[in-house]
């Protein structure tokens, strides 16, 4: 039924930005159905890696395969086929400000499917409901919503095509603890029901401990370690120790272990 081949394969990716080698040699494999987080200090190239996976930025050399397709030499048709199978939640939500929430969520459906209007409305509304937004928010514009609601709306848009793979860039940043917790549960829920593969970029220690299967730690232009949280925090590398060894890191570790 589901092939067990890795969903994302990144090999020897290098990129130079503004005179610095942001990625010197990135290797990372993401398996189907797992929740993987990418962490690292500021400027470690997390966002650059995400942009490379999303085909928004081309690495200088290396290979990135998503769904078994090489991105570096993908034709526009292949690109479009890949784009239809993933969803992205951007850090700033990137909701279209001139469209209502319902129209925002329905946008990928309108672009990629040939469903009738009613079906599109219903599906978009279902996704809005799934993310826990009240229905009267559906006809509002993004600027009329609070930050947390915008985040949920952006997530609704990301999952509207029932993607196999979703990328979440700082999903819980700027949310109150309750909403952040709710979002974590929602991601877990979606992952288990739809068999989603989730790639998260986050600093949220709760998210890291609670929902991730594996965590990839970026530093020095490489992936320093990929492991589950319990093993990752034991890694002796100074950058990793610095990242998780602070007071907050240890408190979170105490709670979850």
């Amino acid at each position: 039924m589901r092939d067990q081949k890795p969903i994302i394969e990144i090999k020897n990716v290098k990129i130079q930005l503004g005179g610095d080698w942001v990625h010197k040699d990135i290797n990372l494999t993401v398996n189907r159905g797992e929740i993987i987080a990418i962490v690292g200090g500021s400027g470690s190239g997390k966002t650059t890696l995400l942009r490379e996976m999303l085909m928004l930025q081309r690495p200088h050399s290396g290979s990135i395969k998503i769904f078994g397709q090489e991105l570096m030499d993908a034709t526009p048709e292949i690109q479009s086929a890949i784009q239809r199978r993933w969803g992205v939640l951007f850090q700033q939500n990137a909701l279209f400000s001139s469209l209502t929430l319902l129209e925002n969520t329905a946008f990928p459906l309108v672009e990629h499917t040939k469903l009738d209007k009613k079906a599109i409305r219903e599906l978009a509304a279902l996704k809005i409901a799934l993310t826990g937004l009240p229905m009267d928010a559906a006809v509002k514009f993004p600027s009329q919503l609070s930050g947390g609601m915008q985040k949920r709306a952006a997530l609704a848009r990301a999952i509207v095509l029932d993607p196999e793979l979703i990328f979440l860039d700082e999903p819980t940043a700027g949310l109150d603890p309750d909403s952040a917790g709710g979002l974590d549960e929602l991601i877990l829920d979606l992952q288990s029901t739809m068999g989603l593969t989730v790639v998260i970029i986050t600093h949220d220690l709760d998210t890291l401990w609670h929902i991730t299967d594996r965590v990839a730690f970026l530093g020095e232009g490489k992936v320093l370690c990929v492991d589950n949280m319990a093993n990752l925090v034991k890694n002796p590398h100074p950058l990793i120790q610095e990242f998780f060894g602070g007071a907050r890191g240890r408190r979170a570790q105490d709670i979850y272990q």
Partner: protein
Amino acid sequence: MDVKQFTAFDQKSRRLTCSEEWNLLNLTQIKKQLSKIQWPSSGDITIDGAAIMSMDSAGALLLTQFMHKASRSGVKIHLEHFTQETQHLLDIVQKRAISITSIPKRKIPNWLAQIGRFNWDQVIELKDYINFIGVLSFEFLRLLFKPRQWRWNALTNVIDTTGYKALPIIALLSFMIGVVIAYQMGNYLRSYGANIFIVNLLGLSILREFGPLITSIMVAGRTGSAFTAELGIMKINQELDALRTMGVTPAGLLLLPRIFGLFITLPLLTMWADIFGVLGGMLMAKSMLDISYYDFLHRFQHEIPLRSLIIGLGKAPVFALIIASVGCFQGMQVKGSAESVGKLTTRSVVLAIFFIIVADAIFSVIFSKVNL
């Protein structure tokens, strides 16, 4: 593409067998096949999900809606052989499906209400504008006696971008206007043999009207729009809020320098436009009507009163205030979205040009009354 069989209903055993992939891609086909089936109007139905290869939320929603419809018409439904995952998905969708039927409609008011709304918005905007001018005036008076708080850097920056960098385009434009006017008038003057009067016509029309008007319209498009867009984006980024919390008023740092900068540059640009307009006309007069440069300038000096130049230049500061205040005001009105920036930038230019022409007409009426 071969037609897949997604559903099969056995009338005897009252069993609906679902198969293949119930996903977004196949949704329309599944719907079609479901609608073709003859349903019993009562009793029990069993839905067998053993052969479903995969189901996504679109498929789950379709099945859920189908079950809702069936149960409302009195049919009892049992689910069989669904995998745990699918069952879980169905549960989640079922829990939410009730709420999606109640998507509120966006209310569109009738035409009378729309007209009322539109007019009322205009009144509110006028009130806000007067309020804006009032706040600015107070801010101006407050800062007037505190020269140390004057923002010289901001002011020179505004003068540079709105004045110095506009010189080439203004020169080119007014030169061409001069050429065009001379050409149009020259035709008639030549047929009356009154070639030399081109100097009077050109001088008066350019110095009094075309110089200030063309410059102002150009600046409204070039600078007024920039003011609105800059301030609007700054407002969206909360930069203005940040300034306020640091004890710096946006009026002092951003608005007043823009207004005074344009107040200074627009008369200078008008003078610049006058020069090039007359030059353009002079060139055309020479090539078309054979008036030598010497004759042209000699007559210009005697025939065109200084009054004309002063009247033209005197309008420029008024136009500058209109452009800058409208541009800044619209920028401060921006709310929330990128769309709002675009809308208000357009509005800023349209309103500025509109009020420039209104003001020019008022000037003409006044001048005709006092015989200037």
